[in-house]
């Protein structure tokens, strides 16, 4: 059994955002594996640990620096990694074609990717990849278990959650709460440096962008920042209620 786990290198959520030359500045900022993807790597490793002979392959698509996210996945325990290199900002529908081609050539049974991307805010990669492979999908999973070829679990849907069963091959998207991703230990970080990381140019996959980014702007909504000292709770509460009534006009 082979599991493909898609990882992306993104701006750390704790970093502030600013615009430089028409895109969000990344130079000199802390970049990390998208936290939503960590749950997929962890889940893949747990499934492998439960069955002999399974292999976990981490895949990233992006500039050369995406290697760092792959090294993190390898340090967590993935067996090998593939980096499809490009400097281009590809939209998710285009990226899904690459993921599907890799899944075919590597004879993958199960694909994990994050439920939402921390840079594009996209939910689409899992479903788009599943469609290209003509596989079923389970999105926003919060619990998973695998028996032979049957994957069962729980996932979030409109207005609640569902338990489900699906036969592999399938695509699964992950989120916080699915598991607690492990921290790479120092020996594993050292070991990861020797693991196979194959670089492939994007041109091998014949895809082109379907969307063009023409404007990027940081949201700055001016806030009133009328902050009251609450040492005298009664007076502060009275003042705040008055502001909400008469300044903001949001309560009657």
């Amino acid at each position, binding site marked *: 059994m082979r599991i493909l786990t898609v990882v992306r290198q993104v701006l750390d959520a704790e970093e502030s*955002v600013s615009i430089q030359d028409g895109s969000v500045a990344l130079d000199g900022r802390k970049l990390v594996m998208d936290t939503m993807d960590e749950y997929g790597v962890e889940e893949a490793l747990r499934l492998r640990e439960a069955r002999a002979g399974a292999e976990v392959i981490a895949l990233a698509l992006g500039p050369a620096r995406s290697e760092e996210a792959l090294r993190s996945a390898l340090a967590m325990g993935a067996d090998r990694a593939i980096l499809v290199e490009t400097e281009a900002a590809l939209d998710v529908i285009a990226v899904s074609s690459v993921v599907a081609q890799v899944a075919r050539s590597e004879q993958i049974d199960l694909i994990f990717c994050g439920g939402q991307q921390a840079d594009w805010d996209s939910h689409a990669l*899992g479903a788009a990849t599943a469609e290209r492979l003509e596989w*079923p999908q389970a999105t926003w999973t919060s619990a998973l278990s695998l028996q032979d070829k049957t994957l069962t679990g729980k996932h979030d849907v409109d207005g609640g*959650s569902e338990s489900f069963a699906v036969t592999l091959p399938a695509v699964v998207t992950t989120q916080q709460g699915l598991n607690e991703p492990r921290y790479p230990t120092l020996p594993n970080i050292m070991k990861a440096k020797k693991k196979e990381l194959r670089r492939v140019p994007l041109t091998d996959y014949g895809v082109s962008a379907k*969307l063009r980014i023409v404007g*990027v702007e940081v949201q700055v909504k001016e806030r009133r920042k009328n902050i009251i000292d609450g040492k005298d709770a009664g007076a502060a509460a009275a003042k*705040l*209620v008055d502001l909400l009534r008469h300044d903001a006009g949001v309560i009657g």
Partner: protein
Amino acid sequence: MILLVVEYSNGKVSKSTLEMTTAARGIGREGPITLLVLGSGVASVAEQAALYADQVLVADKPELAQYDPEVWAAAVAQIAREGEAHTVLIGGSRSGREYSPRVAVKLDAPLIEDAISLSDRSGTLVAAHYTFLSRVTETVEAEGPVCVVTVKPGAFAAAQPAGAAGEQYDAELALPKPRLQVTGKTAEKTERISLTEADLVVSGGRGVDSPEGFKQLVEALADQLGAAVGATRAIVDAGWRPYSEQVGQTGKTVQPKAYIAVGISGAVQHLSGMNKSKFIVAINKDANAPIFKIADYGIVGDVHQIIPAMITELRK
């Protein structure tokens, strides 16, 4: 034509459908606006939908009794192809964002997710959407004969009915069998006003100290104001509150007139779910909490004293 997939619940057309209708009317592309109703026993939904559009296509079949991403995507792509739709609008709900990528792949079309504005510029579709956990607004352009768009809930005003009711037609569909077997369902319990539709939201974080603290502070203030109740991921993970109340990246996105954050420090993942609120109010003992950086009003103080005092004040 512009094809718009109707969202509804409990036999009623959802607010998101009316918002998408506004988006469709404003794009500035030629051709009729066609509303598509998928489901089983949906005659009354189709009737309500007809008030808003030129025409309504109805696929009323037992196989459509339950939503499935593959079935929905197959149905929408088929109709879009046969009707030569140039724009396909799908709700930015969890399900809409789950099956829309399949529609885009089937149609070999670009996908724009969670659009907050939408217009045509000489044949190119131009849209804005939020990125970087809702901190950045990005404008994108999509070309080609057809484009698939999910529309962010709350981004457009709800449409008024059109002058005359549109014609209704039955849609013929060849549908695949669902492969994701649903073996159980847990519905969110909502005794209160819906979190995503409320004008006022009172939300609590770790600063309320305990599940009892949440009840005494957050729920009591919400009851006094007629507000919905929200929570941070930290206290949902701790089991104090149900997931249905979680606001943020992995929970709900809200955009009320006022968001009152009680004992919430303001992690970026939480802020991404509420930073578009008209007014943000923060009550927290830590003056350096990030929440104060985006607050319109706030009190630096002990929530256990401030909130009861606010409730007393509101009762006056």
